[in-house]
């Protein structure tokens, strides 16, 4: 066995690199225009967390494997750790802070509280942004791996489970998240037959 001479990930490199230039970037974040001068290596996630101090968006893995950093970019969900802020000049970002506030909750935020769709809360902003994006994708007829008829995309608990599977929850609030999102879908679509909310969760959740 040859002893490694460099630790994991270390690529041979020729001494110090030049001081990285910064680039200007303008993003509309939660409706507000924000102009920043950024090191081009800064991910959209770290732009939000470290530069704009919007720490509601979470970093779970920093490389696209957990979903904690999910935000909406021009309305579609993206993993903000997997993209660089400078690639999105002029685009609009909605983060968890833009969905609602404690005094003015988004219906999904409210449903997560009532159904206990979280425990530690760390994956929660990602689950919520992903849920917003998912409901919109289903409404737009975007199919998924479990869609039986690609021309007839319908809401179901299995569609949700499939589409939200990129959002890991180690606390495993999964059944309660599905119940919460299903309830919001049902109320927004004025139909209850699509709701798969668990009776147990619903009863427990609305106890106050």
């Amino acid at each position, binding site marked *: 066995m040859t*002893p490694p001479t*460099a*630790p994991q990930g*270390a690529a041979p490199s020729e001494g110090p690199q030049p001081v990285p230039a910064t680039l200007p970037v303008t993003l509309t974040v939660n409706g507000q225009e924000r102009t920043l001068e950024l*090191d081009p290596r800064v991910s959209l996630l770290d732009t939000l967390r470290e530069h704009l101090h919007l720490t509601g968006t979470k970093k779970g893995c920093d490389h696209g494997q957990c979903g904690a950093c999910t935000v909406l970019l021009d309305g579609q969900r993206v993993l903000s750790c997997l993209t660089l802020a400078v690639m999105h000049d002029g685009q609009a970002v909605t983060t968890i802070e833009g969905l609602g506030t*404690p005094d003015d909750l988004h219906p999904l935020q409210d449903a997560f509280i009532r159904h206990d769709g*979280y425990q*530690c809360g760390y994956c929660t902003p990602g689950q919520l942004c992903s849920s917003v994006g998912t409901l919109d994708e289903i409404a737009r007829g975007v199919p998924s791996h479990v869609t039986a008829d690609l021309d007839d995309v319908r809401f179901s608990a299995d569609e949700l489970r499939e589409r939200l599977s990129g959002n890991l929850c180690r606390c495993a609030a999964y059944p309660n998240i599905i119940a919460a999102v299903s309830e919001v879908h049902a109320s927004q679509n004025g139909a209850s037959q699509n709701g798969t909310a668990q009776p147990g969760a619903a009863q427990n959740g609305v*106890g106050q």
Partner: protein
Amino acid sequence: MKFDQPATTNPIDQERVVTRPHTRIEGPLKVTGQAPYAYEYRLPEAPTYGFVLGAGVARGRITAIDTAAAEAAPGVLLVLTHENMPAQGASDTPVPQQEDASPQLAGPEIRHYHQAVAFVVAETFEQARAAAHLIRVTYDVTPGQFTLADTLEEGKEPDDAADSVVGDFEEAFGAAAVTVDLTYTTPDQSQAPMEPHATIAHWEGEELTVHTAHQVVHWVKRGLAMTLKVPQKNVRVISAYVGGGFGTKLLFFSDAVLSAAAARVLGRPVKTALQRPLIFNNTSHRAATIQRVRLGADHAGNLSAVGHDTWTGNLPGGDSEPACEQTKYLYAGPNRQIRTRQSELDLPPGASMRAPGEAVGMLAIEGAMDELAEKLGVDPVELRLMNDVQFDPEKGPKRPFSSRKLAQALRTGARAFGWDGRPRTPRERQEGEWLIGYGVASAFRTNLVKPSGATVRLEPGGTLTVETQMTDIGTGSYTILGQVAAEMLGLTLEQVQVRLGDSEYPASSGSGGSWGANSASAGVYAACDALRRDLAKQAGYPYADAVFRSGKVWQGAECTELSELAGKEGVSATGSMTYGDLDEQFAQAGFGAHFVEVRVNAHTAEIRVNRALSVVGAGRILNPVTARSQCLGGMTMGIGSALMEELHVDHDLGLFVNHDLGEYHVPVHADIPDMDVIFLDELDDASSPLRAKGLGELGISGVGAAVANAVYNATGVRVRDFPITLDKILAGWDD
């Protein structure tokens, strides 16, 4: 306050707030992204960013470490290695400790893969990360022992899992009418909380404040003080929101030690989150086990011989994975032999992960019970009922269980799940291309309590503030402690504010070993008891007559408003709960039963869980919303342990190769169906004044065995080498 007599009637028995299904009081903050986790505090001074570089070998010595390029890189402020690390407290083990010195970069010796070898601090995260990759490390590699199966002869009885030998096991096993003798293996597993280990450290003169993701505040406070060689009183720890722990945040790691050390050198705040691919080898994990279960019974199924041996390994000085502990208590049987043997391995440190011992021990004993039932031709539920026992089987009737509803859980679950309608023999039921199987297992988790304290303050205006070091790692502490305080003072939950996770508050049990809710609630109970006495006295009522209700204290029809008693200054009281020997007088544990239905694809052997039910007897359920979520979380992690979770050991290089969330598989939405939890009515007088027991780990303890038993029922293949993946089923079908 000391809890040394079984509980008698107390204000909690009113159950006006406690036991009610309140949603989490911190919920609005969590769902809007306003709850601050360790890495997210904004200090007056701009932070600097730390990045930990892990060793590229498992065992050896650093012969040279060249940091020149990193030090010259843009934005770099400091590079720490063993050559310039400030003096630290010593430890005689490479395993990080709960509350003792756990030095980092302590010397050139490498004891495990991804052990920290350097720490880069820069003005930005991007600069620190880039610079870390410019460091050149040269190692002299020493061969290590990375294979548990090769060390079995060397195993020693660990301090934390003593042998239990009763009667003559070998003779009884030899004479038994029906026996099973089975070997199980469980792999190394990772806790993998979604929030990485993270710390912000800053100094003001000699005083250190760390915001860190931790489960037990006073442990990390003491441990950091010992490591950094500063007085404990100079260290403040804040851990107000913790993004999951599952045991790994019982210890403190390089993010905390190195951020604190570097912040002191630099005179600036340092923030560090361990990068996800480092966490699996750098921090702790649940160690692999090899287990042999031997059971002997008469023809009816009464156990005469109960044998369970576990082999496990760790770095020297590390704890064992005590996978036989539950077998000491679970079933009757006059002849018993339960032993753990621990050997030395050069893998990363093994330590606590949700339900140390039971989580993997139950996979073995409950699998063996299923095989014994099959051999006997009895219903596996019946076999468990037949061998139920109301006292500690090792100590005898003089040590009864404080409460034990195993039988009721099994019966209730069997009814609710439709156990009678189960397929009786393997491969009996097929729906389309899916084979359907049912499985059952008992649930068991030792009940632990720890001393815990709190301060409660009746504020001017009559609201109440609770302050304690207790943490909420998703367990519901904020809400539960608010409920306990509201109940004690006759307030509504909305009138109570709860502040947690700050070492300025009274020390608490913290969160771990399922002791948190019960222990911390007892601490709040004690503080409220003291406050109630003060307030009754101020109102001029004898304490025995005083009733707290509706924001007032009453004596008969007479009453005084609490807001009046609070005055302009408020009134506060501090209390803590300690424990006598009730846990010696009584065996204490949570019990339950798991029922699982799986479907297995008849062609591909893909395994899906169709439904799962846990019936839980865990004393008083303080809050059914958060309790149910704890159970669902445990059940899910148990399903993960049965079907997918495995750290793959590179037996040559000595590392866990799948060290990220893409390769270490945890259950995702698509893996988990709707699941049910039934709580049994139970009050445990010997556990605490709350009459509650631990709950957070009961869900994981046994459910994996129910999955495995269901997979057998569906497929006819017994897989005893966890996790049960489809290749193992297919191999079984080939045989």
